[in-house]
């Protein structure tokens, strides 16, 4: 038993037990399990790429990338431009990604450059740089020269809408791609395949020479230098990858959610992603695809199951409270571990 707890890790054990209790309650309260599983799969696919964005950052040694909003903003701009040109369906999705990726690469490059001058304070600084960018972009959303009636307020009011509906453009294109039912559970095949594709690319990359040197630079700087690895360059590379993944991640998230959320919505977006990968067993220095999958599945399942169960037994805002406590609790746990051991 002790062995099992040790291998599983204390936080994962607690969350697993909590999840099982909630599931049992859900069965007892006669909440449809197949609906829950469908939701779990969708929520997993929606969030997994944003969580995946944490991996290159941690591997390259910049820790948790609290500046995820940077990539998210790039993704939002991509999606907005594609809607402005009235692109729909898969074309809209791919054009969004096509516009977002170079933007995110430039942003990630500049941010990575900056991170190299502030070693050791990446997380605190990243957090506030992220907040600054989000609040600066609030002004941009107000002034941006978009014309499409989908994007701006119908009458009166300045600037872009707070939430932009994607119903007439690219809502659910990935979710519905090759989707099929098992019993009453719907499998969002396209969504899961797309995540699998990106995860596969990240995994393959980490197996190549270049990926390995990035990992070495992240885990042991001195050793990396003595092996002739340019640590600064590797860190920039990790930051760019993380930012690009965040940009793609928000586009996939939004098409599944059905809305683009502008203004202050991206402010705290790094928190759930950070929490998910840490729940999956990553630490501030070590992360891989398995952590992403386990973490996102556990964290999102918890949220999906908690919502209806708690709605029945108590106030509606309780599931939000649980989300806040669990996600910040796990980040806190990881931050206070000696030498960045696994959470």
């Amino acid at each position: 038993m002790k062995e099992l707890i040790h291998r599983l890790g204390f936080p994962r054990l607690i969350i697993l037990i909590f999840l099982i209790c909630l599931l049992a309650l859900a069965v007892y309260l006669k909440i449809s399990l197949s609906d829950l599983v469908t939701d779990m799969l969708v929520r997993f696919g929606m969030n997994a790429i944003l969580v995946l964005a944490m991996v290159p950052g941690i591997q390259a040694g910049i820790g948790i990338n609290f500046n995820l909003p940077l990539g998210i903003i790039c993704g939002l701009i991509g999606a907005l431009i594609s809607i402005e040109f009235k692109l729909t369906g898969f074309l809209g999705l791919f054009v969004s990604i096509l516009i977002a990726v170079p933007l995110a690469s430039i942003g990630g490059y500049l941010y990575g450059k900056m991170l190299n001058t502030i070693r050791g304070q990446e997380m605190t600084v990243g957090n506030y740089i992220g907040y600054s960018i989000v609040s600066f972009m609030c002004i941009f959303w107000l002034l941006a020269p978009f014309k499409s009636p989908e994007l701006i307020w119908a009458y009166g009011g300045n600037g872009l809408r707070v939430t932009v509906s994607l119903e007439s453009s690219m809502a659910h294109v990935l979710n519905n791609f090759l989707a099929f039912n098992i019993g009453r559970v719907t499998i969002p095949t396209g969504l899961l395949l797309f995540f699998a594709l990106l995860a596969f690319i990240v995994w393959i990359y980490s197996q190549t020479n270049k990926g390995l040197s990035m990992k070495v630079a992240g885990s042991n700087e001195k050793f990396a230098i003595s092996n002739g690895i340019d640590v600064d360059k590797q860190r920039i590379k990790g930051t760019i990858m993380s930012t690009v993944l965040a940009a793609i991640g928000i586009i996939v998230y939004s098409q599944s959610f059905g809305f683009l959320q502008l203004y202050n919505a991206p402010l705290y977006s790094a928190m759930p992603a950070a929490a998910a990968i840490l729940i999956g067993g990553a630490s501030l220095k070590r992360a891989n695809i398995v952590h992403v999958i386990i973490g996102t599945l556990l964290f999102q399942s918890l949220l999906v199951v908690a919502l209806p169960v708690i709605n029945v037994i108590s106030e509606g805002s309780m599931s939000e409270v649980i989300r806040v406590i669990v996600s910040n609790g796990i980040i806190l746990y990881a931050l206070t571990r000696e030498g960045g051991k696994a959470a």
Partner: protein
Amino acid sequence: MIVPIIFLIICIVGSFFTGLPFSFLFDEMVIRLARNLVLVTSLILPVITGLGLNFAITLGAMAGQIALIIIANYSIGGIKGFLLSILISTPFAILFGYLVGKVLNKAKGKEMITSMVLGFFANGIYQLIFLLFCGTIIPIKNESLLLSTGVGIVNTIDLANIKYSLDKLIPITKYPIATLLVSVVLFIFLHFFLKTKLGQDMRAVGHDMEIARVSGINVERTRIISVVISTLLAAWGQIIFLQNIGTLNTYGSHEQVGLFAVASLLVGGATVEKASWKEALIGTFLFHLLFVISPLAGQNLLGNAQIGEYFRVFVAYGVIGLSLVLHAWEKSKSKTKLGEIKE
């Protein structure tokens, strides 16, 4: 001193465009200084002790609000109610400060990000207690404090009972003389406190933890005491703040406390390692001047008040981000210089 000068210029130019009469601005600034100074001052000791900016003063603010809710429950008003709430908040603040100090001792080198996440985490617990436990586990006498369901505290609590109880204690002018006096006394206390053995220990720990340890200072204990005092001042500061505002936003009043206090201190020219009452005073003045004028300046300059609103949020985040970047940058530069000398 470059930061306060830049802000002074922005403020002067901005106030030119608002067209507000000087007397209005002066009154507004006196009131804002009175209600914010104690909160901003609460940040100084952790900076001196080397913990950086203590974003976890949110917990202090919560302690203050807990006391105010208890006061409201028994409908105690006037200066008696005010003093009683100060008294009640004290044990809570000391307990919270002790816990924060314990956690931050486990996260040396990452104190700022940890204190921030700790603030979010505590906010979750706070919501759990006041949304779910109040009215069920914790009995509430005053039913007007409870939501219509009988569980959970209402979103806004009217503090009319203790409104202006400190501000108008010395009713000589229309200005809050007593509150300003409290701030001055606090500054003097802080000045002499830093000359005591404990104050000197804090400086030593802030300067170099290892040297302090070798010279026989109990580093962990000193850091905890510093955080406890900070949290305590934040609790009292929040009560002073809210007796001026007059309404307690149960789930929101504490959220921005850390952000605005930290931004104020930094605008005054403080850094992560250096802060005193002067920076607190200058910074609070400049930051709140900007706060007052930016919506109007935005309205008059760009024809949109919302731009000004977003601009001041951007300034709050941006000034924190920028000063963290500059500080970390200078630190890493001086580190490499030291490294070169050693070789």
